[in-house]
């Protein structure tokens, strides 16, 4: 569906983007650096946001299964052995092992309308140091809160895998609208545990007091822009859940998907009725939204930054396309079109998607980004028992 008009500026911009893409495909991918939007703390982060509630696991990059006595001792399964592997940050709604939601609510504003002091409010998130521990009975994570004296135990399921993962990796997978699974892989070991984000009591209502209201300044004030960006992101996460990974240099890659697109809805049967060569339409959802601060390569296909705004993060819509007996991901330059509005004019790339039947038959439409190390990862889209994935490499 074409937009109602094409301005000269728009055409110029598209031509520039096309020329840029051609130049990029002709030579090793070289894009303008994009300011990182994640934390530049040298860690690998895996994030999952469900219902605006964040769970994040952070690991040191390059934790090799073969390095150090402590690593080998733990992986060898010596009871009582353990080591610190990273941190866990969880919204106060998180229930994971013995970590329980913080149900207390802020007090309402005082009668004179004063806002409650920030320090009186319960923390939005809690951070824990994570230790991987081999117990007599099996495996667990110990989570030590930054507040002293709070230690939590998180039992882990354990499997030995055929495939070896040299460095410790963590990933967070949505399994339901308000639930997920933490996966850890290291060497041939594979651990997992489930978590939930529970419903919190509503915040008390503020009495109406005249004259209250936060001053706001112009759209050029960095503080104002920051606040506006946070509010907009709150809206985005009101509509979409998000899986994200952050590289040690702060480059963030995210995949946001519309909430509540269930297997019972009218869109799900289209997975079986979509014709060869067509994309799967979604009436109840916007297209999957992929955003990256760093250029990536899927197979032989480069996915650069700057596709919708030169010098800025790449933003793509992702569609599922049936091709023969298999599937491909179609990436377009329209990341905010609705799921009924596929327009091939905006196609940016197609990449092969490996397909498998796996997991919970009732999973709503979702997606997961998995980092296997600082340069490699995997994009997974799942819906019911269906899973599609593609591996990527970071292009520096």
């Amino acid at each position, binding site marked *: 569906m074409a*937009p*109602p008009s094409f301005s000269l*500026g728009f055409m110029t911009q598209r031509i520039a983007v096309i020329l840029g893409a051609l130049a990029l495909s002709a030579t090793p991918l070289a894009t303008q650096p994009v300011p990182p939007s994640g934390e530049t703390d040298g860690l690998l982060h895996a994030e999952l946001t469900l219902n605006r509630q964040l769970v994040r696991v952070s690991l040191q990059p390059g934790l090799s299964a073969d390095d150090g006595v402590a690593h080998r001792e733990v992986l060898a399964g010596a009871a009582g052995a353990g080591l610190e592997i990273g941190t866990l940050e969880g919204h106060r709604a998180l229930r994971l092992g013995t970590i329980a939601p913080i149900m207390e609510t802020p007090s309402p504003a005082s009668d004179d309308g004063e806002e409650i002091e920030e320090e009186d409010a319960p923390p939005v998130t809690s951070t824990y140091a994570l230790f991987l521990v081999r117990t007599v009975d099996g495996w667990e994570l110990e989570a030590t809160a930054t507040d002293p004296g709070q230690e939590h135990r998180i039992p882990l399921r354990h499997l030995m895998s055929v495939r070896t993962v040299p460095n410790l990796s963590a990933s967070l997978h949505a399994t339901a609208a308000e639930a997920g699974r933490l996966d850890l892989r290291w060497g041939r070991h594979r651990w997992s545990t489930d978590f939930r984000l529970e419903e919190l009591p509503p915040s008390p209502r503020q009495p*109406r007091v*005249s004259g209250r209201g936060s001053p*706001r300044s112009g759209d050029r004030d960095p503080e104002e822009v920051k606040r506006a960006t946070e509010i907009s992101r709150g809206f985005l996460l009101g509509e979409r859940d998000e899986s994200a990974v952050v590289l040690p240099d702060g480059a963030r890659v995210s995949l946001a998907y519309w909430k509540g697109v269930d297997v019972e809805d009218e869109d799900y049967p289209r997975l079986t009725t979509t014709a060869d060569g067509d994309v799967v339409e979604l009436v109840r959802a916007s297209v999957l939204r992929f955003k990256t601060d760093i250029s990536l390569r899927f197979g032989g296909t480069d996915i650069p930054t700057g596709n919708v705004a030169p010098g800025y993060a790449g933003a793509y819509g992702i569609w599922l396309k049936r091709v023969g007996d298999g599937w491909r991901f179609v990436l377009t330059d329209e990341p905010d079109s609705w*799921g009924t509005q596929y327009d091939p004019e905006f196609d940016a790339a197609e990449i092969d998607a490996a397909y498998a039947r796996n997991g919970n038959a009732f999973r709503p439409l979702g997606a997961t980004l998995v980092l296997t190390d600082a340069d490699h990862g995997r994009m997974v889209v799942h819906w019911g028992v269906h899973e599609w994935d593609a591996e990527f490499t970071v292009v520096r």
Partner: protein
Amino acid sequence: MTRTLVAVLAFGVIGAVAAPSYAENEADVTYYKDVLPIMQENCQSCHRPSGQNISGLIAPMAFMSYEETRPWARSIAHKVQTREMPPWFADAPRGVFSNERGLTDAEIETIQNWVTAGAPAGSQADTPTAKVFAEQVNDGWTLGTPDFVVRLSDPYVVKDDINDINIVFYEQIGEDLMPEDTWVKGWEFRVGDNGWTHHMCSSVFSPSVAAELDGTAVESEGEGADSPDSRLLSCVAEGGEPDMLPEGFAVRVEKGSAVSFNLHYNKEPGAGTAFDSQPEIGFWVEKNPVKHEVINDSLYNRGFEIPPHHANYRVGSSRMLEKDTLVLTYWPHAHLRATAARYTAIYPDGNEEVLLNVPNYDQGWQVTYKYKEPKFLPRGTRLDVDFWYDNTPERAARMGFNADRFVGYGPRTEDEMSLGFIGYVEIDDTKAMKTTDND
């Protein structure tokens, strides 16, 4: 192409033949005889001293008299020639909306001839009867005298240092105003003559939550119409108009409900700029049998980010109609970057129809497009709403926003929205047969 040319020529011939009522000779054209009737019918609804209601009353100058109109004569001629005035932003479809504005070719020619002739006053004896506007005889209400009025119980002070604020107030409708469940057919918002109100929306909240809401407020980051306990009543913004539903159509309000006053104020901050706001909503009760319960809501997409410097970025939303539907109104709502909006029906047989196309969207004119006759859309029709945005530095310089960032949904004027409001009724066989007598 040929068909179009024939049509244009045909209209030209018809126009030339059918235009004699307005001056055929420019020397005869005068303000009182020829121009004032056009101004009364097409311009004065906005171009007159502002009343309390923001609904449409935002014109910067009045055209009530020759003395007020004459200095603007050349500007008026230019604006009507280019069809910038009277303001109407949809190019399709034409002739189906009751509030469509626009002058005929003959009316435009009359104004051109008047200006060319030196904008003469003519004889005051030719003056038509002055137009009487409803609010002049109805204590400021444009729809007549309301049956009851819900007013914010205390004025709210918008402080000096506020530049832009969205805030929602809640008031329970007292039994003295509405002692029983009621069908309302019309409503009008009055926000006071402060000049700094960007928009006001109101939703009706069910009695189950009304008492808890009463007297509270929340700085809005989107709290609004999509709560399971609430239903959007309406919104009004610059260039908007109050709503009176067609006969037989009404909105049901339960006894003990609350209403929200969702207000967006936008002003220059600074000493002495504070003002009081005490908005009110007038309601008109449907006393005749009601056949159709009206629903106001929106197709929306709040999960977007418009890229920096992008000149033509689309944000879409969609809905599949689960029942046969009669559509009464559309109101596309977005902010400064929006350049175009479109509503499209994709019928069950695959045919498409553009229900509303607004190729030159203007944030300063928040028009609700009201059908003369409700539009029927069968069950299984898909409704698409698209907005296009220009986030280039060139537009930013004109409109005063920051083009150097991804911009998402947000309450400030400098943020964006993508809301395709729609007023409609679902035709349920049972409900369609039922009539409810309010008495």
